[in-house]
Each structure stands twice: as structure tokens, then as C-alpha cells.
């Protein structure tokens, strides 16, 4: 192992990578926070992220515009979110199994569409990614500058979204109604607000952000698409939401924890640690389990979590 490689700049680089790698999970977790606050457990997140990754890649490849890729990714996410809404709100089926169905559908559909669009090629199609844009001035701050202010624009967008989500959730009428729907849907109903409509909106937000989170991978960190590109990040994002106890700011810390695990895994490989890479690759998944076990007992789930709402049903 090359211990001499562990220098101060190396550690700062590790932390910067942690921020970057946290972003896909952060987007998805922020969206899922809204969805779960409204009382819906969307286990289809993994499939939605995959469709977002595909939409982002295809949009950017076809139009040459990364922002149109982002738009298509969010649109794909919204469509999948609405499908989850139809299953859980309108058809009132078991949300766990519906989520599994969405994940299986999204993973199959993204693979199929990719193959139908691009066929089998010896070299995979690539796109030019969002460039790194250090923020003038701020990026000169020691340590913090490289960690936070020397990234691509999607990273900044995710970081800005954290306080925005907090304000929407805790300081607006809409946020209040959304939280109430997850706790006492009957009370919201008596106030003349539509429970179903609020829950559909929560899934539109959740779907759009999960789609965006999935699209970060091809658009800002890999430049290509492959089958199962999200590699479980959808499930990790759900674990982050539980860890964060349905709070956007704590979701940031949760996402950073997993970003760190992924960054650590990558840098341990570059350090040529005497640990096989396959075992290092397990790290984020093991940490997810440990974290979930640590927080689940204490977590206070929204009262109407995963329960379909019907008027007059006791």
C-alpha cells in the first residue's frame, strides 16, 4: 500500500469526490422526502432513476443540449412517478409490491430502449458532460473551495435545492398541507383539500428529482449509459430518507455519508490497498445496512405511511 500517497491534497480531493458522488442520491432522497411526507413509500425509486439516466443520456445525445437531457430525464421521472401514483393512489394496491414492479419495469425499459436506440456497438456512444465550473472567488477558499465550489453545475443545483426543499416543506402552505396528508389525510380531506391531488403532486416532485438524480450519472460523471447504471442508488436514497427522518437538511448529511463511502472505496483502490476491489465495492451497501439498522428503531414514520386513503374508511 502506498501510504505516502495519503497527503493533505489527497484527503481534500477525497472529500470533494464525496460531495460529487453524493449528488445523485441527494436529488433522489430530496424528492422521496416529499413523497414519503405525503404518506407514500415509493420503492420504485431505483427504476425511476434508471429511466431518468436513460432519458438524460438520450436527450443530450439526440439534441446535443445537456439541458434538454435534464428536461427529458425529469419528464421520464414524472411519467414513472405518475404511474406509481396510479398504482398507489388510484388503484390503491400494496405500495411495496407496486414499487417493486416500477423498479423492474424501469430497469427493463431503460435497457430495452437503450438497445433499440443505439443497437449493439463495439464502442459505447458518449456525450460531452457538464464541465467543472469553479465559482470565481469562492473556489479560492482553502479546502472548502475545492470541496464545495469546484464542481459542475448539477452539484450546485443539488446543494441549493436542500434549503429550498426545507423552506417549501416547513414554511409554505403547500408544505404544511403535504405534511398533513402524510399524518392525518382525513383532516386534510375535511378541510376541503384533495388528498389524492396532493399525493400525486408529491409523486411528481419525487419522480422529477429521482429522474434528475439518475441523469447526473451520464450527464455529469460518466458520459455514457449502461444497464443498471444506478447500481442500487435508488434503494440507498430510500435508506437516506429514513436516516434523515424525512428532513431535507439531514438528507444532505445522509447523502454525503454514502458519497464518502463511495469516494473512500474509489481512493482505496487507487492507493493499491491489499484488499480485493470486489470487497471494496461492497462498502456502500454494507454501510447502508448498518445505517438503516441504526436509525430504523428510533424513526417516527409518518402516521399514514404506505396506507391508501379512502373517504370514510376506518
Amino acid at each position, binding site marked *: 500500500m502506498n501510504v505516502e500517497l495519503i497527503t493533505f491534497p489527497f484527503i481534500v480531493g477525497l472529500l470533494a469526490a464525496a460531495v460529487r458522488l453524493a449528488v445523485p442520491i441527494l436529488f433522489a432522497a430530496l424528492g422521496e422526502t416529499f413523497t414519503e411526507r405525503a404518506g407514500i413509500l415509493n420503492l420504485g425509486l431505483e427504476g425511476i432513476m434508471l429511466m431518468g439516466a436513460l432519458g438524460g443520456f438520450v436527450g443530450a445525445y439526440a439534441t446535443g443540449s445537456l439541458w434538454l437531457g435534464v428536461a427529458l430525464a425529469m419528464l421520464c421521472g414524472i411519467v414513472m412517478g405518475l404511474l406509481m401514483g396510479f398504482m398507489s393512489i388510484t388503484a390503491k394496491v400494496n405500495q411495496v409490491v407496486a414499487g417493486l414492479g416500477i423498479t423492474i419495469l424501469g430497469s427493463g425499459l431503460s435497457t*430495452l430502449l437503450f438497445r*433499440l436506440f443505439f443497437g449493439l456497438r463495439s464502442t459505447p456512444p458518449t456525450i460531452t458532460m457538464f464541465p467543472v465550473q469553479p465559482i470565481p472567488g469562492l473556489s479560492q477558499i482553502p479546502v472548502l473551495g475545492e470541496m464545495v465550489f469546484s464542481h459542475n453545475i448539477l452539484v450546485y443545483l443539488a446543494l441549493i435545492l436542500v434549503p429550498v426543499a426545507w423552506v417549501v416543506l416547513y414554511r409554505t402552505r403547500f408544505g404544511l398541507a403535504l405534511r398533513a396528508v402524510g399524518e392525518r389525510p382525513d383532516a386534510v380531506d375535511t378541510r376541503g383539500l384533495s388528498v389524492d391531488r396532493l399525493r400525486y403532486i408529491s409523486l411528481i416532485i419525487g419522480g422529477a428529482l429521482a429522474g434528475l438524480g439518475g441523469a447526473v450519472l451520464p450527464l455529469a460523471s460518466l458520459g455514457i449509459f449502461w444497464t443498471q447504471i444506478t447500481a442500487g442508488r435508488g434503494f440507498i436514497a430510500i435508506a437516506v430518507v429514513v436516516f434523515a427522518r424525512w428532513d431535507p437538511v439531514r438528507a444532505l448529511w445522509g447523502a454525503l455519508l454514502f458519497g464518502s463511502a463511495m469516494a473512500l472505496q474509489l481512493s482505496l483502490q487507487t492507493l493499491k490497498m491489499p484488499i480485493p476491489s*470486489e470487497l471494496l465495492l*461492497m462498502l456502500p*451497501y454494507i454501510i447502508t445496512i448498518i445505517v438503516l*439498522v441504526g436509525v430504523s428503531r428510533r424513526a417516527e414514520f409518518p402516521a399514514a405511511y404506505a396506507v391508501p386513503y379512502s373517504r370514510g374508511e376506518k
Partner: protein
Amino acid sequence: MTAREQVTLRRSIDWGALGRSAYQAALSVTLSLLIGALLLLISGQNPVLAFRSLWDGAFGSVNRFTETLVQATPLLLIAISVSLSFRCQIWNIGAEGQVILGGIASIWVALTFSELPPAILLPLTFIGGALAGGMWSLIAGLLKAYAQANEVITTSMLNYIAVYLLAFLVHGPMMDPAGFNFPQSPLIARSLELPRLVAGTRLNVAFLIALLLVGAALLYWRTTLGQRTEIVGASRRVARQIGFSVPATIALVSMLTGALAGIAGWGEMFGLHFRLIEEFARGMGSLGIVVALLGELHPLGMVVSAFLFGALVVGGNAMERNAGVPFALVDVIQGCVILLILARGYIFKFRRGAR
């Protein structure tokens, strides 16, 4: 997870309900196939050609037909495993990982104790596979029972960990020293290979074992343990009032679930591959869930749906080879089948009491 509190145990056969289920299942599958055809049509492929080559691939000859049964075997075992946990409201989606662990452990037993006579060693590999699958699943079961950790997330994480564990083993400690660095373990002794049922095909005894376990599953639901499983699934509160330990039941059912998936892994190893290879369990977990749900979590229903999806897997591979249509079409059909089967009460307007 649902708020409903009525506990009804299924007993005598309700032929009307059975007919309705079969009708809705057939309708769901047909609709899913149509959606698949539509996708192909939009993308400029010829759906008739694609489905012809799918059909020929699955049923075109005796050999193809036995291959369908070969693919149906692990799906049936996994579906029985899934139905056990789902009927107990344990959403274990970790079959793929449990299959992998079953494969790893059974091959390890076969290679480590190779000096034992086959009559003793083969049963030992079976037990090893079942035990390893059961233990892997028990991790998630215990975490659910005693730490309230969501089993969907823990089991899916355990799947990724199992995939990397398998990759590690076949690239490292269990790699065949005489295998030119191919990521695979040494072959097991010829005497341990499961006998073929039809000479010249890959159909083997594992298929009969799967059918045997269908019978065992039918019996299971008539035992007190089966009833306890179903009551804990129907209502945790009612189960507690009767005096059943909910955590203990969850742990036990998780172990049985994993053991069944582990047996599927054992069957793949000793009936088909005869050595550990990477990705031998790929996609089996979600296929098993679809088979279980399409079969309404009933052992006999799952025999039919396992056969159907065995045919789709074999046919899908042939379709990719012969018509150039991606196998992922089968994955899309899977997703559509799950969603349609779930929402059938709403879509097909046959509203009966929710399950």
C-alpha cells in the same frame, strides 16, 4: 403494513375465484405482450418476427421444450420462496443473493470434502446450499424482526454484496488453478452431477425436486406453522393477541425463504453448470417475484407461471440471437405483468375484498 384487520385463511377451493384469477392472469400477460409488441413496432422492429422466434425458441423442438423446463426450475423454487415470505407480509426481494450464496456454499462443500463418497457428499452439498441461503436471508429477517429495518432495502443491498462476494471468490480464493485465469471455480466430480431426465438435454433431477417442493408447499399451508405464517402475515396485531411471537415467526419464515432460494442455487450448480461462474443468478430474483405474483402466491398457480416465464426466458434468448431483438423485452414484459396483476381489481373491474 396494510390497515386491514380481518384474518381469513384459504381453505376449500373456490372454483369461481379460481376461474376469475386465471382469466385476469391471462389477460395481464396478453396485455403485457401487446405492450411489448407495441414498443417493438414503434422502434421499427417487426413484432411478428420477434414473437415467432420467441415461440420457436421456447417450444420449437423437444430440446427447446426441455430447456424451457430447465429455466422454469429455479424460477419455480424462487417463487415458492417468495410466496412464503410475501404471504407473511415480509417483502424479501433478496432471492438473487440467496441463490448465489446457495451456489457458493454447495460448490464449496463439494470441492472441500471431495474424498467423501457421492452418496453422502451430494446430500451434504444440498444441505450446505439450503443452509447458506437461509442464513443470508436470516440476516435481513433478524434486522426486520428486531431492528425494524426495511427488508426491501436490506435484501436488495445483500443482493449487491452477494454479487461482489461471488465475483471476489471466482477471481480469487475459489478460482480454478488450472483454468487459465477464467473467473470460475474448478469443476465438481462427475459423480456429483445430477442425473439427466431426458438423454441429450439439460433437463435434470432438480426439476423433480422443484415439483416435490411444490407438494411440500401445498402441505406447508395446512400445518400449524403454515397457519401461523399466514396469520402473522394477515395481521401482526391479531397474531400477538393469539400469543404468537411475531419476531420469531419473521425470523423463521425468512430462513425458510432463503433456504428455498439456496436450493435453487444448488440446482443450478449441480444440474447445469457444475462449477461456480459469475452472474449465474442474474435477473432470477425479479423473475421469481413475477412468477410468484402471477401465480397468486399459490403453489399450483406458480407452476403455471414458472412454466410461462421459463418459456419467455428461453424464447427471449433465442429472439435476441435470431431476430436481434434485445432480451430486455422480457424484463419489460415482467414489469408490465406485475403492475397489471396488482391493479387487476381496478383495471378489469372485478372488485372483490382486498387481500
